[in-house]
């Protein structure tokens, strides 16, 4: 059959391959190339070696500040989202009535797009801040930071909770019964049975929040847009600003994008490696 199939390559694969080339492959390749050039209109690109990259790593107020903010934001969010989601999953696997309704409510924010999420939380956070301290979210980077963390928690907790619930429900009931017979208390059951057995789910969820937080754009753009003075700008937004807000800096923006991509790729490889090694155990 393989031989008959081969003649149909143009029907089955060529259409998607063509649009994939236009939308992704060609932009990727030319993007890497342009990161080594200086240009205004792409056609006048001039090779400048590594000087764009040198700029990126000395861009203290732009890229490096965004990297620091993004790293801090992602680290804090990874802990809080997963902790709350896991607690909710524990509560929702105890068979209380209305479990499905609660799941529905907690999951819902995940369906809302980043721009709308940003403006929803802008009104809530500004409302609270104006009532209590008399300023809005643009006043201090501290407010922007915690605003982003709260927003991301609201968006992700329900999603992660569903994955943890699936993990907890997959624990064989004999194990739990055996523990009960042995007289284990709730803490021992959690520590010695539930936690180790949902470890694969924890790995998945940690990386989901890690790469999601690292790549965040829409929420950042809508909630703070970097205010005050770019102190709450995350990496994706900094790259966007470099492309579109500074004339003649598109090559630098492209170099930032390459560095950003390498970080994301490194995170993904680490994830694949960790999940694979867990599967062997």
């Amino acid at each position, binding site marked *: *059959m393989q031989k008959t199939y081969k003649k149909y390559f143009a029907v089955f694969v060529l259409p*998607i391959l063509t649009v994939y080339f236009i939308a992704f492959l060609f932009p990727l390749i030319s*993007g890497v190339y342009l990161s080594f050039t200086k240009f205004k209109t792409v056609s006048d690109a001039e090779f400048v070696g590594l000087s764009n990259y040198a700029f990126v790593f000395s861009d203290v107020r732009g890229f490096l500040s965004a990297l620091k903010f993004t790293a801090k934001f992602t680290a804090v969010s990874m802990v809080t989202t997963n902790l709350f989601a896991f607690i909710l999953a524990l509560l929702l696997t*105890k068979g209380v009535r209305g479990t499905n309704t609660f799941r529905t*409510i907690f999951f819902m924010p995940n369906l809302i797009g980043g721009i709308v999420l940003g403006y929803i939380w802008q009104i809530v956070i500004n409302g609270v801040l104006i009532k209590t301290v008399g300023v809005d979210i643009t006043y201090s980077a501290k407010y922007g930071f915690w605003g982003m963390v709260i927003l991301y928690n609201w968006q992700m907790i329900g999603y992660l909770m569903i994955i943890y619930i699936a993990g907890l429900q997959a624990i064989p009931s004999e194990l739990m019964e055996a523990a009960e017979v042995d007289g284990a208390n709730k803490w021992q059951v959690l520590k010695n049975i539930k936690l180790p057995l949902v470890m694969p789910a924890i790995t998945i969820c940690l990386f989901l929040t890690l790469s999601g937080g690292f790549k965040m754009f829409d929420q950042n753009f809508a909630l703070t847009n970097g205010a005050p003075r770019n102190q709450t700008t995350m990496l994706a937004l900094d*790259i966007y600003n470099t492309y579109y807000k500074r004339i003649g800096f*598109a090559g630098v923006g*492209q170099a930032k994008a390459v560095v950003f991509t390498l970080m994301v790729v490194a995170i993904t490889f680490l994830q694949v490696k960790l999940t694979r090694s867990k599967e062997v155990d």
Partner: protein
Amino acid sequence: MAKSSKLIYVVLILLSIAFLFPIFLVLLNSFKSTLYISTEPFSLLNESNFVELKNYVVGAQKTGIYSAFGYSVFITVFSVAGILLLCSMAAWYITRVKSKFTNFLYYLFIISMVVPFQMVMFTMSKTADALKLTSPVGILVLYWGFGAGLSIFMYSGFVKSVPISLEDAALIDGCNPVTMFFRVVFPVLKPINITIAILNGMWIWNDFLLPYIILGSEYRTLPIAIQYLTGGYGSVDYGHLMAMIIIALIPIVIFYFTCQKYIIEGITSGAVKG
């Protein structure tokens, strides 16, 4: 035992209220005049702050929210339809024809799952300009291309579990591979079609940056219409913003309550892809 489960129940109800509070607040403020939104966002509606449906009417006019809704529906539906069609065909071919070349194609496609949008954003917008893809029809090409990685990855995993004997039988009966694919293979793909449609549909419906760069404010999709309210110079009219957020949320909420089971399954199965 009963006592502790009652406590859990109360905690969950309080948490649900906290979760729903932001949406309630937006809804409440969408009926207030802008002046009162900044000074008393938490107060209930009263005679002085209530403006009936004015925010909805004026906001809709200013943003063109109804045509934005139309563009969002058009782009989402045809992007998803194209992704389902093109990616299922390609994934089936790549999985069935085993060679070094198809193996190479498989990895070539899934590279895009790892690369963040910012890497290709600038060069892709230049390419789209050059090829005149900067219209609601042209942008479909970009979504088909961007959706290919994840969709081909997921389809390929599924096709591997589809028994090959049915396909062979259809070919022996005289079908050519194309009619065979649509009569025999495509119907079997139904569960994965639903998952892939939901994953891509939610992404494209909510996507902001790609249409913002490609379409600008000429053809506003819903997220762009919302952003447009705050993007101009001068002060933001929060009343209009709140009303437009509510309008943007309505289709999502309806969709969620009608096919909740598929949505939760579909979206979370995207997570376990690694």
